């Protein structure tokens, strides 16, 4: 599964994307984020406050309960600031 990071999530994690095997028992976005937080202090710091994390799966906004498939492209990013 491809996981992309943008803006300060990317700078805190230290890279723009990961290729991840969905661990057994992880079925939704919340589970993926919990898993990512275990990968290192940068991940943990970037993802600990879910109020500042937005999620897109295959280019569409989804909630934390969204079910994931192994072929999904998941993106994690802070609230947008364009315009």
């Amino acid at each position, binding site marked *: 599964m491809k996981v992309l990071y*943008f803006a300060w999530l990317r700078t805190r994690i230290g890279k723009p994307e990961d290729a991840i095997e969905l661990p057994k028992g992880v079925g939704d976005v919340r589970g993926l984020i919990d898993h990512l937080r275990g990968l290192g202090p940068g991940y943990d710091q970037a993802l600990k406050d879910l109020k500042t994390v937005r999620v*897109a799966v295959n280019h*569409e906004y989804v909630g934390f309960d969204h079910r994931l498939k192994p072929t999904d492209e998941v993106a994690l990013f802070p*609230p947008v600031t*364009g*315009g």
Partner: protein
Amino acid sequence: MIRVQREDFDPGREIARLTEGRRDIGGVVSFVGLVRDMAGDAKIGAMTLEHYPGMTEKQLAAIDAEANRRWPLAASLVIHRYGRLEPGDRIVLVATASPHRDAAFDASRFLIDWLKTRAPFWKLEETPRGAEWVEAKASDDIAAARWRKKPDAAE
């Protein structure tokens, strides 16, 4: 129509193109967003707009389609730039053409309000304190909420 591009755009040419050969358009409303040199209290030197290629286009197209569903528009256009921009540079253009000016005004405002809260762009400002990611503004969420359809509202 939507475009995501690094290059600058010419608002006059874009407005003219929107109405070219048309004789049924009463008015065109446009909003041009510019880089300001003050965000909060810090002076900005320049900023870099990051985006999410693929999703950004898809979300802008969805916002544009929604505006065309809600209002009787003859034409609409959203252009959003990415990359490094300096104070005074154009960032975004929203333009809506309609036989009736109220529809054009409402649709333009809807488009800019919605893209501020829905379009995947992030601003990294160069400030005297160093590079800082701009925080989302609560006022933008409030502005966008104006357009949320109430389930019990008559349409």
